[in-house]
């Protein structure tokens, strides 16, 4: 178990249509101040910083440290998209354990207007630029249509099964004033929604937004501010299969025993989960890899646990309803878990002790190559 603790979290308001005054930097600054306020810290208390952003270029982490006025002794920049939040948390936890840092401000965010998104989608990596964009098949929707079709074939699931996730998360979003989509959504509306890339409909695909997220990690021995969650365990897997498998199993399937052993608890002890939800199919795959779906019965999990019991999955509404703000998508679920464990979640507050946070991202050719998971525990 790590001695690192999370002492604050914050978010720049997600915006569907950012005006010209909104830049990646203004969003990151807004999130940084929200997290510092939440942690009851001033900027002089921060001695380390981590950043993930697709659109801050040509600036880097050191530029942002300067512009925020942070004088730090530890600095990192991460490029792992939906897995960036937990990768930065893992590194930050080791830094405070080793004494290289005392309080780490972790930031992720992007201004994602239509132009920025199109540029990112067409030149995500060399394979996308040279092989997928000319089809044209830029952006992940088509690839995750194929993946969802494979998943449907393997497990005998249909659209209305996956729809349980989108509908349930919208129910949570209705309780979150920060979510960009808060109107109620029924399974009938989901089934009638316009197709994006069949079988994926509008509600299976994350709304692109502009925004930023931040958390503060501190050494457990030197806590000031407001400790709310300890980091019990983090595991990660990068490029587990050279993109030569079917994408229906992530590297977390092999890493799961180490996660639960280090966390000192079991899947049944988890009270709340933030799972990277770029598409509903990935929520199922990631949870199943971690042993979170009893007997591997996906249909029962979807209809009973999620549909009927409303088990606390992505209680912010997830990216599907709150929005995907570029690299901030990798930190959004961690911010929600910390918010819940700090009792700051307002109308959607859950009495949780253990939270699971799962990241996933970076489609190299066919599916995401990065996955990581953390178990957090409330500090009483």
């Amino acid at each position, binding site marked *: 178990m790590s001695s690192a603790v999370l002492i604050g979290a914050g978010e720049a308001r997600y915006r569907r249509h950012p005006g010209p005054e909104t830049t990646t930097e203004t969003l990151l600054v807004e999130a940084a101040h929200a997290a510092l306020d939440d942690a009851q810290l001033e900027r002089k208390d921060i001695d380390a910083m981590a950043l993930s952003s697709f659109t801050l270029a040509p600036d880097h982490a050191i530029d942002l440290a300067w512009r925020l006025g942070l004088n730090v002794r530890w600095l990192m920049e991460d490029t792992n998209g939906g897995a960036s939040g937990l990768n930065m948390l893992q590194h930050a936890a080791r830094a405070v354990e080793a004494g290289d840092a005392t309080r780490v401000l972790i930031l992720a965010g992007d201004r994602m207007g239509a132009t920025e998104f199109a540029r990112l989608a067409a030149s995500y990596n060399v394979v996308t630029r*040279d*092989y*997928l964009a*000319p*089809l*044209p098949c830029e952006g992940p929707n088509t690839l995750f249509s*194929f993946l969802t079709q*494979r998943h449907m074939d393997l497990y005998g699931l249909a659209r209305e099964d996956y729809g349980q996730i989108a509908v349930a998360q919208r129910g949570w979003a209705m309780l979150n004033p920060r979510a960009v989509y808060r109107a109620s959504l029924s399974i009938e509306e989901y089934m009638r929604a316009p197709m994006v890339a*069949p079988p994926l409909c509008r509600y299976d695909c994350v709304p692109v937004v502009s925004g930023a997220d931040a958390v503060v990690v501190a050494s457990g021995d030197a806590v000031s501010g407001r400790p709310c969650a300890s980091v019990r365990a983090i595991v990660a897997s990068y490029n587990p299969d*050279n993109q030569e498998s079917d994408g229906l199993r992530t590297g977390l399937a092999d890493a799961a025993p180490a996660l639960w052993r280090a966390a000192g608890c079991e899947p049944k002890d988890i009270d709340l989960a933030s799972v990277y939800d770029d598409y509903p199919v990935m929520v199922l795959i990631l949870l199943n890899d971690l042993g979170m779906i009893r007997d591997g019965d996906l249909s029962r999990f979807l209809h009973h646990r999620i549909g009927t019991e409303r088990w606390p999955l992505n209680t912010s509404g997830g990216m599907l309803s709150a929005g995907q703000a570029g690299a901030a998508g990798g930190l959004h679920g961690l911010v929600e878990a910390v918010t819940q464990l700090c009792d700051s979640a307002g109308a959607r507050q859950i009495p949780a002790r253990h939270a699971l946070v799962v990241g996933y991202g970076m489609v190299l050719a066919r599916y995401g190559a990065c996955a990581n998971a953390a178990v957090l525990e409330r500090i009483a």
Partner: protein
Amino acid sequence: MSQPFRITRCQLCDHAIFHPLPVCPRCGRRSWRSEVARHGTVEHATSRLDAQTGESVWLAEVRLDVGPLVTARCAPAVGAGERVCLALVPAGDTAFRLLASPQRGA
């Protein structure tokens, strides 16, 4: 005009891949030859609207007869199990697009 589509095969362990890589993912060595891949079978297909043109674009995952799974442009309403021929066609000044066309007489 159109060109034959080529995959990459390891000269040492015979492993075939779609996107060229510097190192063979199976044996770790670096000795490649290219090989023409003409035929395959559609595993999955879908369509999406192209943001620039507003037109419907059909795409498929095709299992090549020589092994690798590739992502290709295809004709409308292509379905799983359909046999296709593969070729590279120009897409813009320098880029090429992998096109999967229904196999004649299939």
